[in-house]
């Protein structure tokens, strides 16, 4: 089965600093990849998804961006972090809408 690697596990960043979270996938080729955010007291919100290299779709306008430089690599970035960017970020792979989504262990981001 697929394995989703995310790092770092935890991150504390000052307001206004840049961000780069990386997600890599093993065990499948040409995966559909997703970034979700889980804010305190709220459910998971889909931020971005990608069906292939260089193909990014954004679900909600925000201070973040995503890139897919390689087939199995998905990166979440920000040029200047806001306090509201704090949360638990999860990368996931889901082959089709009927299949199980596989999640990474997540990155807990605290913006101070």
């Amino acid at each position: 089965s697929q394995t989703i690697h995310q790092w770092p596990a935890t991150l504390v960043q000052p307001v206004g600093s840049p961000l780069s979270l990386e997600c890599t996938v093993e065990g499948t080729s040409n995966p559909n990849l997703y970034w979700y955010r889980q804010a305190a007291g709220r459910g998971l919100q889909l931020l971005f998804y990608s069906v292939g290299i260089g193909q990014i779709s954004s679900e909600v306008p925000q201070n973040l961006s995503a890139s897919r430089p390689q087939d199995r690599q998905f990166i979440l970035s920000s040029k200047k972090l806001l306090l509201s960017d704090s949360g638990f970020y999860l990368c996931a792979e889901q082959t089709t809408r009927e299949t199980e989504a596989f999640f990474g262990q997540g990155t807990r981001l605290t913006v101070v």
Partner: protein
Amino acid sequence: AQSVTQLDSQVPVFEEAPVELRCNYSSSVSVYLFWYVQYPNQGLQLLLKYLSGSTLVESINGFEAEFNKSQTSFHLRKPSVHISDTAEYFCAVSPWRGGLIFGTGTRLQVFP
């Protein structure tokens, strides 16, 4: 548009008691429904899913959920919970583009 509502943010229950976690969905097209479980500071794991066929689906650890089209519900049940079932549970639907639309989650707290 599709959406998911989990009415209970927290459900406290004693060990060996039965539990029901409620989920209602909204969709104008055929739905694929999922329950995921999240243990503290971890990613999500699939518990069970409904795609078609039998409306009652079961997981390997004793949970079951019933798809009710007329009531647009997919409630999760377990006849006897264990301490180890303490976690957050998310109901989700899968829209046409793939990915998942999650409810806000229900925290199940099992007490000895």
